[in-house]
């Protein structure tokens, strides 16, 4: 199970961060924030090539501190970040991809909502 999920807007501020309730939330905030560095670098180096659809999924960003961080960028530069415990070795790449796909679908549904203005903090029940 993912330990933390975050949706980051184009200007690099968090639209939605949720962690498992018994964890140190601040630490995850920092982890997500620092993983933005890696994402930025990947985006800038990829943007020199033609933008391939497959590049949306950035894969394993870096394994640090007993956690694995995965990233995914949409074409409008919205970033999704999933943090998973390293001990959870049974999760495979495909499952991560499907998780991101579901996240992306949920996000597009939300953007289609006429009451949602772009840039607002996402509040979810």
């Amino acid at each position, binding site marked *: 199970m993912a330990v933390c999920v975050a949706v980051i807007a184009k200007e*690099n501020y968090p639209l939605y961060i949720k962690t498992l309730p018994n964890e140190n939330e*601040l630490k995850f905030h920092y982890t997500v*924030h620092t993983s933005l560095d890696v994402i930025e670098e990947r985006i800038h180096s990829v943007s020199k090539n033609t933008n391939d659809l497959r590049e949306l999924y950035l894969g394993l960003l870096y394994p640090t501190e007993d956690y694995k961080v995965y990233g995914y960028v949409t074409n409008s530069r919205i970033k999704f970040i999933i943090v998973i415990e390293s001990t959870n070795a049974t999760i495979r790449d495909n499952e991560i991809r499907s998780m991101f796909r579901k996240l992306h679908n949920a996000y597009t549904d939300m953007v289609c909502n006429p009451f949602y203005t*772009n840039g607002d903090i996402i509040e979810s029940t």
Partner: protein
Amino acid sequence: MSKQFAVFGDLFEEAIRAGLTAIQTQHPGFYYQEAARYAIARKQLCRGLCPAELKYPASDPLAEADKMEYYGQRPWRQGHQSLEAPSVQKEREGIQALQYRECQVDHSWLVIPLLSSAIAQFKKYKSPRMKRYLVVQMGEEYYHAKDYSKALALLGRVTWEYRSERWWSILTNILQLSLRCAYLVMSFEEYVTVSIELMGRYAQVPREEKIRIQMNLHKIFQDEVPEPEHGCEHDSVEKGRALWTTISAGGKSRSPIVVEMNSITAFVECKACFTADSFLCESPVTVKLGLHSFAPMPIRFSQLSVRFSNEAYNQFGIVVDENAVDDPIESTSYLKPGQTLWHTFQFIVEQDDVDCNLSIAGVDLVLGSLEGCCATLRWTDGGGDAIVHPFATQVHRKKVALNADFSVVSWDVLPSNYSTHISPREANLDVQLLQKGPALVNEFYLMTVSITNTEVAQISNVRTSISVVTAVADAVATAQPNTFLYEDIDLPCSQLISMPLLEELKPNQKVDNVAYVRCVDSGARLMCIQVSYQIPIDISGKMSMCNCMKEITSSIEVCEPFNITVSLTNMKFEKIEKVQLGEAFLSRMEVKCLSPWPVALQGSSLNLAKLVKFADEESLSQLTDVSLKQNDCAVEFRCLLSSGQTPSEIDIGSYSIEWRRVQNGAAVPFASTTVSLPTVEAEPIPLSLHVDMPAYGHMKAVLPLTYLLHNQTPFVQDMEIAMESSEAFMLSGHKQLFFRILPDSQHILRYNLFPLFPGYVTLPRLRVNMVRYSGVLDQLLSSVVPTHIFIKPFEKKVSA
């Protein structure tokens, strides 16, 4: 563990220096960071496990620790195999000794250098956020190491980045730590700034916290000691409290501090705007200032002042509250939470500011009492904060009109318009440029500027100026001006002329000013006429002089007056392409008048080039005092002679005519138009022939004819001439002759002709043939030699 990581980090660094490339996710920085993390963990464990007060136990269980074989072995256990400790007492003492030793280790100073090397690594590999995270950790370490000012400095450096990236939870954490440090070091400015930010709407502290912080701020402004922050160590708290007390007990107020509000997100937001984008100079300028508070409890300000770009208006923008700070009387400076307070300022602009932009330089809000210690919250440019809505999505929101009722609009959507334009008063003057166009090139064209005062009052100091407007494209193409303005005929020209100053102009009075313009080429010209004057006007009961200006542009069409064509003919008025050297030819100048106005020609003159001269000694113009209407043509002929020796293209020169409009009369001087004559090829002829004969003959009277043959070549020429007979004449002279002409000398042939018939009769033709240039000469000479002559008949007598 941490030492392991540190050593590995060093190794990695060495490897990189030796040539191993590292990527962003795998470089020594991570290892240093891990080292630091483990050191921090160690410190935390130590704190948890070791009691603070400890002394070294009496017996020295660790005396032989260095002699052990393995790292970490405990000397009192040596020699026993079982897991159980042999002696419980010794075990306890041993552990106590270890704990004591552990307590001695200054953990923070182990962590900090590790963190700084990690930061350096991350900086090298361009991970700014990781670097910032590490800086925050270093700040925390300094806090634990009780170096509070350094911690404060470090944390201050990173807060702006988190603020701009809007990671509120992280920012809140950092701010709370900064608050503790500021409290402990008694850094007044930092404390106030951080408190203000923590009370703001983005900080994620619970409401009770915010209330507590607000209470502390209150206490500071009343020269009392604030409560200590949570989570600080006791002895530090005592020191801090002592510091605060000494300052407040000393009685001297702390110097007022200034807090820059634009770089933090505070609990009070300010938005100032002018109610319109531009104001007329006679109407008062209105500024609306709104303050919105997000603090949990009501707060009172002592003074609100607005600063403008022109400091003279600052006095109009001050609101002072005389009540005491914690007096819950509601007034204009008492902000309730969630409520917006509006202030309106109005003032009249000075004349100097007309036609300028007026903007709000800043807003100052004073917290605390003015006599005691206070903090000035300073905004620049009409409000805003660190997040001045960088969203591109803001444009989708409907813009709120500036003069709408602001109390019903929500705070976030309100516009902030901090610059406005003062437009000058409309000039009520009728200015016209009277002219009889179109103008002609090179003439002195008369224009009249007519000014009529249509104001109700009398105006004074009327200044008029006329200038030529050059379009940008023109300015590039023509380096020299092509339009000249003259105030009067005798004065030199300029690009801008100012008319004499008129002292006063009564209502409905009219005045005319005259100017001349001369244009060098055709086209349209734009003239700009500016009239400025002063008029007394009434601005809210006060009379003052207002400057007004009226500007009009008027275009003048300029067209060519003449179309001059020049062609060359020979003496028989036939068109020729080439000219013979030494032979006279005619230049035909045709002047076709294109101007719609009748034009009077004064005269014309030819400026000839070196190789060309007039055939006659003096050559008068044939176009003197000729008056042309549109589409009339005037033609004149001038007889020219080319005087060169070598065949070449000769430039004949230029032709100029002087003229002026008929209707202008003698007031306007003549203008001259010049056209250059074509270049023509001159060829030498070997022989030139001149015929000397009277203009007409009589019947039965002798007509003498003389032919002069001039040898133009430097050689002796053999000549052969033959005179053909003609029916109309009886001829006496050489019919056929061979002779020689020396170079540059001439030979004269004389003939006597006796006319037989009256009328325009054909002359007998002389054929000249040069032996060397046979066949050539005929053609050349046929154009020179006259072919016909008029013979007058007898007087008719009626014969019986």
